């Protein structure tokens, strides 16, 4: 083995001086914070899409404002808003109900996944809206004709098809989530980018650490796009393709 590879393995391996376990732990944190953010984004996205489609004027205005503003500003700004705004809100509650004093900080993980959820929800809302438009009107008319009430139609006919048509777009949203999770490092959460930075700073070898971090991101994105492709194929199995 060449000398640089031995040195690299000693640095990034799982020996007593290796950073391998910490890097993998940080990668797991990246996946955890992105997937919680993605789930919250699905909730916000579904609510916003429902607001847009409900025909209710105020709900539609709120949903449109949400998706337009959030998609027009940097994710980093949303993260700062949630992290510091959440702390300010917590401090206010703390003073109001418990008479406490001083600064109450929001846990970095919570701030991170809420911020990712807020930004990703705006993108998911558009995906859901597009998927809803792709559901054939005839299916809903048929369901109404056999006497299904609205909620049953939503659950049996609309929701499964919206999910099916939304899958490719949701895959893109998940990739956005993963990449946005790197920005959460500004709140101090030790995810992959933060861990690579810390490792690089303490060993004075930024390059190896950041390159390893980037490689781990590539592994995560490649694996998850494979999983989404599988899910898509499974969701489409009942459909005839032209």
């Amino acid at each position, binding site marked *: 083995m060449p000398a640089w590879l031995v040195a690299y393995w000693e640095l990034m391996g799982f020996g007593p001086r290796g950073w391998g376990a910490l890097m993998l732990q940080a990668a797991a944190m990246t996946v955890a914070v992105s997937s919680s953010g993605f789930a919250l984004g699905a909730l916000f996205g579904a609510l916003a899409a429902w607001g847009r489609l409900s025909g209710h004027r105020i709900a539609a205005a709120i949903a449109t404002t949400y998706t337009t503003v959030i998609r027009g500003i940097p994710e*980093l700004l949303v993260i*700062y808003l949630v992290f510091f705004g959440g702390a300010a809100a917590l401090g206010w509650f703390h003073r109001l109900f418990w008479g406490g004093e001083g600064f109450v900080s929001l846990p970095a993980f919570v701030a991170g996944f809420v911020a990712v959820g807020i930004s990703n929800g705006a993108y998911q809302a558009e995906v859901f809206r597009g998927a809803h438009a792709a559901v054939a009107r005839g299916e809903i008319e048929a369901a109404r004709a056999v006497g299904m009430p609205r909620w049953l139609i939503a659950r049996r006919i609309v929701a499964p098809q919206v999910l099916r048509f939304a899958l490719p777009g949701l895959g893109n949203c998940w990739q956005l989530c993963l990449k946005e999770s*790197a920005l959460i490092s*500004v709140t101090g959460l030790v995810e992959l980018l933060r861990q*690579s930075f810390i490792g690089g700073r303490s060993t004075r070898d*930024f*390059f190896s650490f*950041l390159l390893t971090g980037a490689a781990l991101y*590539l592994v995560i994105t490649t694996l998850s796009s494979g999983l989404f492709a599988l899910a898509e194929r499974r969701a489409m199995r009942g459909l005839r393709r032209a």
Partner: protein
Amino acid sequence: MDLAFLADCFLRIVPGIPMTLALTALSVSVGLVFACLLAAMRLSGNTLLDWPARLHVFVFRGTPLAIQMFLIYFGLAQFEVVRTSVLWPYLREPFWCAFGALMLNTAAYGSEIVRGGLLAVPCGEVEAARACGMSGFLLFRRIVAPIALRRALPGYGNEIILMVKATSLASMVTLVEVTGLAARIISTTYRVFEAFAVAAAIYLAINFAIARAVAALEWWLSPHLRGAPPPAPDLRLAH
């Protein structure tokens, strides 16, 4: 809402606008050249050109921009070769590091948009041009490029807006732009909403202007899709 503080925030954040705009303009324009180059490599049919372009797109689209920026800013400086190279005066500056990361990143995303536009040119159009005796550069200039440009423009407009948002990451490598200034106010005063509102309004204004400009360019480039002007009313029938 404290209006005096809001005005104060505005005055403190506005000086960051030139940096945001400069980073966007530079990285988008140079990135577009690289994007066209990468798209040409992908479509060349030559494996030796195709694979490096594929690798570039795979790596830059599969990793977060933040880590790319950190790799260039923190990672490259540790090599003696880099510190003694002609590029060192640039790679030492956070501005050029941020520009490099943004530019290489948008080149990767942009190349897919350009490639999609080129692939969307209908075969019939090219065949018809060949039948008329056009070939080579003339065919590209008269037929392929205009059609591909129109097809790629909406997607590229989105990419420009994403780049405006991406310049906010430059604050992570010490550059002073809109998001960095807003974050500084937020983290020193703990008054979140005024600084956030000002920064958000600035980004929304920039992005709105870009979206309108791209839409106008699209309108200007597709006169054949505008439809005939409404016919003048026939005044004889009024009598």
